[in-house]
């Protein structure tokens, strides 16, 4: 570990290119024009643009989508003309009833725990940044990193359905049909991934910049 200079890049009017990480000096621009990275051409910003507004909007959308994702069936097992709809939670219950404990735990964690915790973590981070909290910025940054890394694992159920639908095509004996809940659930995962991408973790540390401002 090397000690940092006692100043942030933004303070020094340096923008870090989000694509190639080059630092460029930001100069006042005529309105309507945009600064671009001289090395790779990506748009330059001191912070991700409209980070809080975008992350809030996407997080709220994910909360709303979370309801159909858990109430609508993710798939229906049709056997002998009789349909048996499965939701995310009933799918976990079936695994437990079958004695498949490790698998039940995995699916429960990936499909139920991770999406909820991810939404709560994003909400907490957004509220803390909005209130200009100075409390444990390092831990909040770690929370952000975890939130960003685990989200993708919730897609397990969606991929499982795509396999089941292709395999179980036994005509009158049994077929598996995908349900609208699967689409809602995939949307929750994708929208929360976008929300986490829009959030700028440097905002957590910006609250430490102006100590007299509160």
């Amino acid at each position, binding site marked *: *570990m*090397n000690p*940092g*200079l006692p*100043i*942030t*890049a*933004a303070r*020094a009017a*340096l*923008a*870090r290119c989000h*694509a190639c*990480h*080059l*630092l*460029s*000096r930001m*100069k*006042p*621009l005529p309105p309507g024009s*945009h*600064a*671009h*990275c*001289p*090395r*790779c051409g990506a748009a*330059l910003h001191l912070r991700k643009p409209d980070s809080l507004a975008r992350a809030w909007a996407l997080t709220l959308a994910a909360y709303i989508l979370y309801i159909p994702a858990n109430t609508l069936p993710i798939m229906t097992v049709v056997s002998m003309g009789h349909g048996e709809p499965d939701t995310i939670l009933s799918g976990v219950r079936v695994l437990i009833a079958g004695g*498949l404990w490790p*698998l039940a735990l995995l*699916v429960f964690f990936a499909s139920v725990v991770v999406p909820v915790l991810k939404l709560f973590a994003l909400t907490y981070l957004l509220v803390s940044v909005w209130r200009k909290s100075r409390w444990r910025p*390092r831990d909040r*940054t*770690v929370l952000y*990193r975890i939130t960003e890394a685990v989200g*993708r*694992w919730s*897609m*397990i159920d*969606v*991929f*499982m*359905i*795509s*396999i089941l*639908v*292709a*395999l*179980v*095509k*036994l005509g009158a*004996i049994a077929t598996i*049909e*995908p349900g609208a809940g*699967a*689409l809602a659930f995939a949307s929750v995962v994708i929208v929360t991934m976008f929300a986490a991408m829009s959030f700028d*973790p*440097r905002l957590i*540390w910006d609250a430490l910049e102006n100590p007299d401002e509160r």
Partner: protein
Amino acid sequence: MNDPNPATFSASAADALVACHDCDLLYRKRPLREGEKARCARCGALLYTRKPNSIERTLTLALAALILFALANIYPLLDFQFQGRAQQSSVLSGVRELYAQGMWTLAMVVFVASILAPLLKLLALLYVLLPLHFGRRPWRMAQVFRWIETLHPWAMTEVYLLGVLVAFVKLSDIATIVPGVALYSFAALIVVMAATDAALEPEAIWERLEPCR
């Protein structure tokens, strides 16, 4: 870039500096030994690394990953046998069946996450690294290399494999399920793709772009 914006320039002083990705603190860049990592003292984020023969190793691993990717998509994943009937499934047949059942959005999601994003990521890597290995600069290298980071979160090969395994265990109670060649290729692909990501040192690639400023 062909039209450098006059409003910004990379000052020579800024070249020797790096900013932390997560907390924006500035650091003076110091030379690292091979395999060493520089971390932010304030938030713990990775600042930069130096990896031995990054381009050659990444290139080899990406080529191996491309072969495994082809095997994983050509061969069947699982064989389903039930009362004398048999059904095979591949990655693409899962997508096709969702589409056939009217869930085309879901089919798109599965297609992008399991096939398109990992494939484009591998092709973009090869497009940039292969010419660099032979001392040439690929056309529009910066744009293509930028895609790799954009595609990264959407390439969900390892999550997909776990989804296949859950389907496998669920069905093995009621029918005979035989794992296909693609399942083993997938498992190997995940290991090789993780190694590819670990071998890549983006800073080394971006520095090759410097002379064209």
